[in-house]
């Protein structure tokens, strides 16, 4: 406990293993081995993708798949961006719009919902919460077809909204927000806000949201990744390629490989570039996330 809360003045000496129970070299070695194997397991595909992105089509088939041949990365990127009037950039933009906006709205809504469920007493609260919780169990794939039929009724298929609207719902986010709000937002603080004359909405946005930040960031990240990777919904809803997110766009290219062979390079480079925004989002947000999770665990 003391180790965790100490922030200033911590030095390497404090962390000497002598303090805790001594772990055997064997178990430590095993842990490192397992971690090493899994790290490799996760990194090798990305490495392969990166290497493949730097090769031209001939080298791709004939050279070592895990090491460089001629460096063509920038030429490949240039070709990718030029192909089909630069539709790829449009797809990336769409993905950022769907995932960014969708995750933001989902975070706000599920944050408010979870907070309300945690902090207000009303009739049917538990029934409502259990229903939402049930929603966690329903896979998005199973919902795609019914959603399509619903959206058809109101002429919203093949529009931006067809992908955005279903994405702003996050049962998991509601669940996490409720749990977290219960644990991290003291009733006294809300009382104090009321006494000071702040409205409930104001208390939520100015006080509670700050306390709930780690949970909200987590919800945002999860939802961002989920929307970014959501494949089935666009497949069902969209028919104009100007609306495709990048995952679906790359998939359509991939199914056309035998007609247009140069697409193979574009799919590889495109896939590689498409994971960059995810990595950026993760790196930017993990600071808040990790700090926050730490705080939560200690309190």
């Amino acid at each position, binding site marked *: 406990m003391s180790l965790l809360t100490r922030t200033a003045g911590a030095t390497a000496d404090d962390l000497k293993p002598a303090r805790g129970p001594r772990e055997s070299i064997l178990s430590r070695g095993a842990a490192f081995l397992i971690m090493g194997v899994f790290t490799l397991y996760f990194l090798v595909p990305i490495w392969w993708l990166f290497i493949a992105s730097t090769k031209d*089509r*001939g080298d791709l*088939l*004939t050279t070592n*798949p895990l090491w460089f041949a001629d460096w063509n990365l920038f030429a490949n990127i240039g070709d990718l961006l030029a192909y089909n009037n630069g539709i790829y950039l449009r797809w990336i933009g769409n993905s950022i719009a769907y995932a960014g906006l969708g995750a933001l709205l989902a975070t706000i809504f599920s944050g408010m919902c979870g907070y309300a469920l945690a902090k207000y007493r009303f009739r049917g609260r538990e029934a409502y919460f259990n229903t939402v919780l049930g929603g966690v169990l329903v896979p998005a*794939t199973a919902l795609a*077809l019914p959603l*399509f*039929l619903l959206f*058809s*009724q109101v002429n919203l*298929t*093949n529009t931006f909204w067809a992908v955005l609207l279903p994405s702003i719902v996050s049962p998991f986010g509601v669940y996490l927000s409720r749990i977290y709000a219960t644990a991290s937002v003291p009733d006294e603080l809300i009382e104090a806000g009321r006494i000071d004359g702040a409205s409930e909405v104001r208390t939520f946005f100015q006080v509670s949201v700050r306390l709930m930040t780690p949970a909200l960031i987590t919800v945002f990240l999860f939802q961002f990744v989920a929307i970014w990777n959501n494949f089935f919904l666009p*497949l*069902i809803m*969209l*028919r*104009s*390629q100007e609306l495709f997110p990048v995952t679906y766009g790359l*998939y*359509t290219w*991939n*199914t*056309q*490989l*035998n*007609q*247009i*062979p140069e*697409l*193979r390079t574009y799919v590889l480079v495109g896939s590689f570039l498409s994971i960059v925004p995810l990595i950026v989002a993760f790196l930017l947000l993990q600071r808040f996330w990790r700090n926050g999770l730490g705080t939560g665990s200690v309190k």
Partner: protein
Amino acid sequence: MQHTKRAVVTGVALLSALALAGCSGTSSSDDSGADAATCAPSDGDVTLDFTSWIPGIEDVVAMWNEENPNIQVKVQTGPNGNGGTYKSYFSQLEAGNAPDLGQIEYDALSSFRVQDGLEDLSACEDVVKAESEFIPWTWGQVTLGGDGVYGIPQDSGPMALFYRSDLFEQNGIAVPTTWDEYKEAAKKIRAAGGYITNFSTADINQFAGFVWQAEGKWFANDGKEWTVDLTGEESQKVAEYWQELLDEDLVSTYPAWTEEWNNAYNSGEVWTWNSAVWGANSISSGAPDTAGKWSVAPSPQWEAGGTSAGNWGGSSIAVFKGSKHLYEAAKFALWLNTSDEALTALNKSANIYPATTAGLKLPSLQEGVEFYGGQKIYDVFAEAASQVNPDFVWGPTMTQTYANVSDGFQKAVTGQGTLLDALKSAQESTISTLKAQSIPVAG
């Protein structure tokens, strides 16, 4: 036109089955009114929705839009048919907002017909008149063995034998003209360290092409009920032939279209490929190091001196049920698939091999191809196109049948069961799938 017939992703297959089931439940009730659709010009300007996954189709359609300000066509796109677009069609049909026109491969046309998803184009005079322009067997693919016309043929995939002329020559092996000779050549090639070809377990369409060439028929429809015959005499002959090659380790069994598969061709490990006209492109893109070393010959025959060809792939442009502009849609589909300008553009942008007899004479199809040592390979395919049996019909549940045969084939190459066993079990499951969907079936 979609070239490849990969094994279908199970999830997609499952969901299309669901969509199919959904359609069959609702569509039968509104038959009577919709069938009366007449083929008359609409008043005023018309906009048609058209779904296709052909690369560069936008440019071809733009040509049409420029010449026909009153009939504008809007292109929608997606992955290839089995990759998800068929699934979309079924959802859209169920929701009642299908596009006016859509690309459908021949082997999937029956599925849409059985679910009552297609308009009968035989109501249009121009369509009926156009029959003579098409290669007879392609027309057979869109009439589905009946009187109606459920699409306009777009392209075809007549099969011939791609082979490494350099390797055959160096090793003093004659290019086989019969399947018996093919097997003899296979033994010599194995002795020289190579494989004569790759037997792919996922490409059931290729196998069907072999059966087609042997004059076998997997399905028949007499207007009342379907007959399923995956295990007929010809199918048995073909299955047993390839089983022998597999048993004697004369063919490789890489999964098709993968890097290892490309590499097997690129490195000279595999020497021939009995494939469709579009395969020319697959080889040149997959095996770039072998440029100039390939040639094309007619497919080996079952009897010496025979002239029969199989077909692998090809698609049509169909008009979906509920389109309010049958006349205009048919007009556009005919232009797209018969006019010189459209066929030339399609051939240039996506290597479409036309389904019309006139189309086979396109200037771009008369030239020698550098990758094939300057050989005029399209002459061989044009010849093959005229030798395809016109009576081959696809069944209405091909997705399931392919998946089933493919599962069995995968087992067969690992030594569990035989190719014929796979056909037998697919025969049974196809019949039960038809029954489960209330499609009348004999036996």
